[in-house]
């Protein structure tokens, strides 16, 4: 009678050359495996983030999307008779649906799903209480409601693009220059 070797199979990062586990228990195992990860620039990542427009409110810096409100070039718009604002006002809610000089609805940046499942897209505010709060919205809708975890942009398909605008809330915020987080989330539907 041939002995059967029972293999206790388990899901795991096993990629070794041959692990034979018999019915006997083991006291401990330490199995070193490897995970291959490539960190990509935003333009080529699983969640692709791409700046829009030429007014420089959205730029790519070091391979990452970055926003500046007002843009470094804001003092050049509109051409011929520029208005040169210093910034957003306090105690206000500003929505930016396009780059400086762009058309309303164009968006400040694009989110493109380069994964393999549809995802829900939304923003998270990471600002402190005395900083401008940041939210993202879909500028191609009329209501321009902000996208939150409980009310995201639903089911962005594989290969599909979502244009995003940014909402800033400066209630109880003083005149100053702030570096605040812009947090973009994408969750697979299931």
């Amino acid at each position, binding site marked *: 009678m041939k002995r059967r070797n029972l293999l206790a*199979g*388990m899901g*795991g990062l*096993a*990629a*070794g050359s*041959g692990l*034979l586990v018999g019915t006997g228990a083991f006291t401990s195992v330490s199995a070193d495996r490897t*995970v*291959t*990860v*490539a960190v990509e620039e*935003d333009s080529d990542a*699983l*969640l692709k*983030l791409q700046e829009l427009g030429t*007014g420089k409110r959205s730029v790519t810096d070091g391979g990452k*999307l*970055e*926003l*500046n*409100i007002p843009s470094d070039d*804001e003092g050049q718009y*509109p051409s011929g008779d520029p*208005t*040169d*604002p*210093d*910034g*957003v*006002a306090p105690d*206000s809610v*500003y929505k930016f*649906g396009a780059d400086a*000089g762009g058309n309303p609805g164009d968006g400040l940046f694009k989110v493109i799903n380069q*994964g*393999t499942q549809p*995802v829900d897209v939304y923003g998270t505010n*990471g600002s402190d209480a005395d*900083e*401008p709060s*940041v939210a993202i919205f879909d500028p191609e809708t*009329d*209501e*321009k409601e902000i996208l939150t975890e409980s009310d995201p942009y639903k089911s962005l398909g594989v290969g599909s693009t979502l244009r995003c605008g940014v909402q*800033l809330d400066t209630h109880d*915020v*003083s*005149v*100053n220059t*702030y*570096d*605040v*987080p812009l*947090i*973009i*989330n*994408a*969750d*697979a539907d299931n």
Partner: protein
Amino acid sequence: MERRKFLIGTGSLAAGSAAAMGTGAFTSVTANRTMEVKVADDASALLALDAESTLSNSVYADESGSAIRVNLDGNDINGDNSGSPAGVNKNAVTQILNIFKVKNHGTQNVFVYVPPTSVSPESVGEDGSSDLYIDPQASSLPHRVSYPDADSLSLTSVYLDDTKEETHNRDAFPEEAGYYEPEDFTLAPGESLNFGLHIDDSGSNFDGEISMNIAADAEYAASLSSGSDD
């Protein structure tokens, strides 16, 4: 007897062009990016609120803070320490125009309005339940076509509701004789209108603060010039 070797392979977190993706895509991604935001005084903001001294009633504007205020409560307005005047007339209609400029420092045309529901407390706004009624007014409008002889137009007459899907055009106030054109309230980049107040008192003893939102919408302004009707 040969020993069997079994290899257990599973999907792995391999990214990059050469790797084969398993059936799982990413479950979630959280990308932390940064943005730089400059907050400026009202007078130099993208929608600037600026009480230029050339305006006839700029003395009632208080620009000591970064957000503009209007004071109609005396407080030494004339700077002569006389304690007078101390407020607006009771049982009277008082119109104070040209208090500060609302300037479009953006890059697109905007439609300027005050949502009537933003006037707070509600009783002095469209609710109308108080003996005091206050309505924001606009004068020196660069694109006015309606009522050319009127001193000012009401900023709460043509407005976008919260959904931004509908504009409303109420009876022109204080004319109450017809309707305005939305174009009346548009500002191209660099243009401004003068903000004022219409105050109608029927015997109130009001002594307090009233707030309202001044709104500017570029998308609605763009729909006006393209001729599309949403």
